[in-house]
């Protein structure tokens, strides 16, 4: 156990926990509003542990949509995690199978973004850091969901407290953190265009998968940085 890994993991995770607490509370409140009990809402946060898909799932659950469609929507919202886990594979090759199980269970957007940042800064992704960071988000997430479900009726309209603007701004912050990467602007432009069009013509939650696929395809066909250099060296010149 490396103490610095534990400390920096918990510190980083708590920042995410604080900014995601309103969404956990919101999820709990929406869940009870859609007919789930406090126990069921808490179980969902503890077992699914994915904000956007929990909210999409609850929304569809409340409209009595067929179960298979709820599951399909959860898959669509979470499709990005397939890409995250593929990208993460390079960093966690040294983990044991059991460690990998916990690693993938805790793989959220901020967990992935911070792991990339940590690997690229040269600190490396240790299992200790990963678990400290992940637990510091997971435990408050589950507790906040239960609190939100419990006090669901008292929260009122999230717009009055401007809680609804926090999530897009948080994701915007993660996006601009990648602005120095090669191919950032064409990728983001393609994703933005495709997701907005998909949102209007096909509908949520498909805009997530379609928009992401557009950005990734554009990135794949951009000219490679340098054919003479090995790929690992090329990606090291980003910062």
């Amino acid at each position, binding site marked *: 156990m490396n103490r610095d890994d534990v400390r920096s993991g918990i510190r980083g995770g708590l920042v995410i926990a604080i900014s995601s607490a309103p969404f956990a509370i919101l999820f709990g409140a929406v869940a009870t509003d859609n007919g789930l009990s406090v126990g069921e809402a808490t179980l969902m946060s503890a077992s699914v542990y994915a904000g956007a898909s929990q909210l999409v799932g609850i929304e569809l659950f409340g409209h009595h949509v067929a179960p298979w469609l709820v*599951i399909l929507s959860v*898959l669509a919202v*979470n499709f990005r995690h397939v890409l995250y886990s*593929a990208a993460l594979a390079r960093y966690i090759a040294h983990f044991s199978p059991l460690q990998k199980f916990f690693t993938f269970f805790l793989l959220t957007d901020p967990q992935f973004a911070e792991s990339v940042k940590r690997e690229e800064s040269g600190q490396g992704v240790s299992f200790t850091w990963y678990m400290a960071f992940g637990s510091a988000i997971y435990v408050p997430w589950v507790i906040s969901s239960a609190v939100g479900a419990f006090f669901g009726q008292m929260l009122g309209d999230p717009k009055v407290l401007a809680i609804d603007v926090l999530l897009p701004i948080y994701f*915007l*912050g993660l*996006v601009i953190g990648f602005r120095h990467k090669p191919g950032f602007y064409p990728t983001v432009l393609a994703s933005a265009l495709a997701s907005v069009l998909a949102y209007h013509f096909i509908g949520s939650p498909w*805009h997530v998968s379609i928009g992401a696929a557009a*950005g990734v395809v554009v990135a794949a066909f951009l000219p490679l940085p340098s054919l003479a250099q090995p790929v690992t060296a090329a990606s090291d010149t980003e910062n």
Partner: protein
Amino acid sequence: MSNETLLLILAAAIATFATRIGGYVLITRLKTIPPRMEQALNAVPAAVLTTLVAPSFFNGGWEVKIAMVVALAAGIRYPGLLMLGAGWAVAMICRHLLGF
């Protein structure tokens, strides 16, 4: 706790976990990562997160658009929480003082 709800929650949990381990399972089946795939994988976070941002901006009201632009300006220079605070403050001012 009804059985149907319980099954649905567990199915959602399994579906989520499948996506979280799926990419790893795929990538470890391939021995080497082609440069183009590497470049595509590097673009994943920005591509995905953009899809969570862009529709919120275009579908949001003027107060959401202004808050996000201010947050963007703040986020280029200052850390994430300050960016979040700036955007939140703008949205609150627009809604409660300016009546958007």
